């Protein structure tokens, strides 16, 4: 069979046919791998959540200002922990994606590094280094004072020879905590709440146990006896 001439119509037709065939073939492969890929991703996420949260029955995923968060509940619909999936661009080799789990008191329960491009043998140690038993253990840490490496005046032991990766990790923790506070809110124990409106009139709520700032900037007040709730 003779080689085709390079006439305009031949070239256009050939390229058209090749791209159409390639597109159809890719469509098929995509169609058949779509489900396994989704399964792999879900499995990975679930394994991650199991690692960073206390034992839970089911989880609810939601996005808080574009950051995926997962609230975990036990069988009695009681919140047992919240996990936040954060990305920081401060890594040595690029973005670092970390899943950080908080218990109900806002302390770090666990973390797992989902994606990173840090140097193998140095920054890549971050998956174990900051775990319980690791040299830079951050588990149980309260992040109301932001995490910082020792070099920057904080109390987190940085990975030897990978300070930048460690800084990125601290940045991820702090970002996760900021989102956590936005989602779950922070609670303060108090006995009385004073409410004011724009005109300056005051009202007081007594017998208060806690006041919590929740997502979308509203406050939830819990009372001691009646157990009622009030939103402002």
């Amino acid at each position, binding site marked *: *069979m*003779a*080689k*085709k*001439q*390079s*006439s305009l119509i*031949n*070239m256009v037709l*050939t*390229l058209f046919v*090749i*791209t159409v065939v*390639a597109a159809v*073939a*890719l469509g098929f*492969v*995509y169609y058949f*791998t779509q489900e*396994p*890929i989704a399964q*792999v991703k879900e499995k*990975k996420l679930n394994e991650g959540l199991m690692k960073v949260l206390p034992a839970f029955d089911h989880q609810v995923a939601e996005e808080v200002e574009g950051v995926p968060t997962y609230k975990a509940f036990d069988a009695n619909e009681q919140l047992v922990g919240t996990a936040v999936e954060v990305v920081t661009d401060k890594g040595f080799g690029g973005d670092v994606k970390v899943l950080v789990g908080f218990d109900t008191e806002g302390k770090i329960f666990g973390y797992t590094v989902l*994606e990173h*491009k840090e*140097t*193998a*043998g*140095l920054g890549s140690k971050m998956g174990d280094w900051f775990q319980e038993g690791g040299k830079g253990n951050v588990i149980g840490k309260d992040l109301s004072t932001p995490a910082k490496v020792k070099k920057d005046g904080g109390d987190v032991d940085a990975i030897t*020879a990978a300070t930048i990766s460690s800084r990125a990790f601290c940045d991820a923790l702090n970002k996760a905590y900021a989102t956590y506070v936005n989602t779950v809110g922070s609670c303060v124990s108090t006995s009385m709440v004073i409410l004011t409106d724009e005109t300056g009139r005051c009202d007081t709520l007594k017998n208060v146990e806690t006041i919590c700032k929740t997502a979308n900037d509203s406050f939830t007040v819990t009372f001691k006896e009646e157990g009622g709730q009030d939103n402002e």
Partner: protein
Amino acid sequence: MTVLLLHLKKKEDRTMNNWKNFTKGFIKENPVLVMLLGCCPTLGTTTSAINGLSMGLATTFVLVCSNIVISLIKNLIPDKVRIPSYIVVIASFVTVIDLLMQAYLPGIYETLGLFIPLIVVNCIVLGRAEAFASKNGVWASCVDGLGMGLGYALALMILGAVREVLGSLSIFGWQFIQADGILVFVLAPGAFFGLAYFIAVVRRFNK
């Protein structure tokens, strides 16, 4: 009788040729050690033996498939648009292996993910398409792709193994001494050192 002998001789020649096509990729025309093609993934992915090997095997898959398809359609493609046509074929196979790895080899995909799409622009694949598959038959092209790919995979695996042993004191993920290795071998400069010595050694014995 002579016809039969001639026929046998021809067959033998063809087998010899195929064998040559297959083996030339390992030492004599090794893509990365002799032709210095595809250095970017070579330097980037050989931080460990298993990474190098998986990258090499992924490239082999693309190389064999694209060589077969290109040798099949070589007469249907006008000369002036052959490069874009080859690129479309190669890119399709790369996307296929990218999706397959995501679905069935998520562990390896995690470490190599960044480099898989780059197989499209790996000079070896386009180089073999242009230099071999577009001039030879299907079977010969398939053998050539397999030989070249495996030669590439072998070179990457050895380089990865050397860097892993020196840099992390482990081999195929098995740590034989619990200590820190010579870190520079895991980093980019180590890739250049390793590759340079590797090429020097191969050249010494390739004369």
